[in-house]
C-alpha cells in the first residue's frame, strides 16, 4: 500500500477535482464537529443549570431556617414584657 500521489501538491490538487473533494471533506468535518460541540456545550450548560438550581434551593432553605429561628425568638421577648406589666398592675395600692 503506497501513497497514491506523486507529491503533496498533487494530493491537494486531487487530479483536478480539488474543489469538489476538499469542499466535501471540509463541510462534512464542520457538520460533524458542529453537532458534536453543540451537544457538549449543551451538556455543560445543563450541568451548570443543575448546580445553580441546587445552590438556590440550599439558599432558600437556609433563609427559611433563619427566619423560623427569628420568629421563635420574638414571642419569648413579648411574654416577658407582659409579665412586667402584670406585676406593675398587681401591686397593691397602698
Amino acid at each position, binding site marked *: *500500500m*503506497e*501513497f*497514491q*500521489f506523486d507529491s503533496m501538491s498533487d*494530493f491537494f490538487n*486531487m*487530479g*483536478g*477535482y480539488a474543489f*469538489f*473533494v476538499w*469542499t*466535501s*471533506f471540509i*463541510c*462534512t468535518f464542520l*457538520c*460533524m464537529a*458542529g*453537532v*458534536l460541540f453543540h*451537544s*457538549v456545550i*449543551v*451538556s455543560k450548560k*445543563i*450541568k451548570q*443549570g*443543575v*448546580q445553580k*438550581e*441546587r*445552590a*438556590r*434551593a*440550599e439558599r*432558600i*432553605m437556609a433563609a*427559611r*431556617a433563619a427566619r*423560623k429561628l427569628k420568629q421563635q425568638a420574638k414571642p419569648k421577648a413579648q411574654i416577658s414584657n407582659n409579665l412586667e406589666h402584670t406585676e406593675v398592675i398587681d401591686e397593691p395600692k397602698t
Partner: protein
Amino acid sequence: MWKWINSFAKPEKAYWLCDVLQNWFAVVAIASLSVGLVWGLGFAPSDYQQGDSYRIIYIHVPSAILAMGAYVAMAIAALVGIVWQWRTAYMFMVAIAPVGAVMTLISLFTGSLWGKPMWGTWWFWDARLTSQLILLFLYLGVISLYTAFEDKQQAGKAAGVMAMVGVINIPIIHFSVEWWNTLHQGASITKIGKPSIALEMYVPLLVCILGFAAFIGWVTIIRMKNEIILRDLHRPWVAKRFGGAEFASVDVGGAKLSDAENNDKQSLKSGGND
C-alpha cells in the same frame, strides 16, 4: 435477564450505561475515522473512470447508509417506547434524530458535490439522492412534531408513531423512487449503480462506515445524557450527582430533619419555586 434489561428503563441506569459506553465510542470513532479517511484520501488507488473525485465515496456512502440506519434505530426505539413504555427509549429517539438528520444532510451535500464533476449538474433526480431527500423530510417531520408538544411524554409518543409510520414507508419510498427514476431516465444511465468495487477501495470504505457509526453513537450518547438530565431535572439523583462538590455529601433523600425543614425540602423537590 429480563429484569436486568428492564432496569434500563430507569433514566439513572440508562445514564450509567451511557457513561460506560461514551468513551469507547469516542475512541473507536476517532481512530476509525482518522485511519479510514486518510487511507481513502491518500492510499486507496485512483479510479480508472472517475479519477480522484471518487474519493468522496468515503464520506458519501457511510453517511447515506448510516442516515438510513439511524432512522431504523430511531424507529426501533420508538417501538420499544410505545410497546414497553420505556421513557429512556423516547429519550434515545429524541437524541438520535438530529444526528441522523445531519448525516442525511452530509450525504445530500457530498452527493451533490460528487455529481457535479460526474454528471455535470449540482442536483440530479437520481433515485438514491431523491430517497435521501425524502428521508431528510421524514427526519425533520419527527423532530418538528416532537418540539410542537409541550408535554414531553405526549411528544415522545406522537413522534414515536410518526417515526414508525416513516420507517414502514422507507422501503416503499425507496422502491417507488427507484422505479420512477429508471422510468424517466430512459436509455442513457450512467452506471454508478452497484459497481463491483475493488478490494483496495472497499476496505477503507468499511473502516469509514465503522468510524461514522461510532461517531453517531458517540454524539447520540452525549445527547441522550443531556436529555436524561433535562427530563429528570428535579429528581434527587440528578441533584446528588451534579449539584456541585459541596452538595455531594448532602443526603437529599431526607435524613433526620425537623418537620419544618422536611416540609421545606418537599416543596423544593416538587417545584423549587418560592
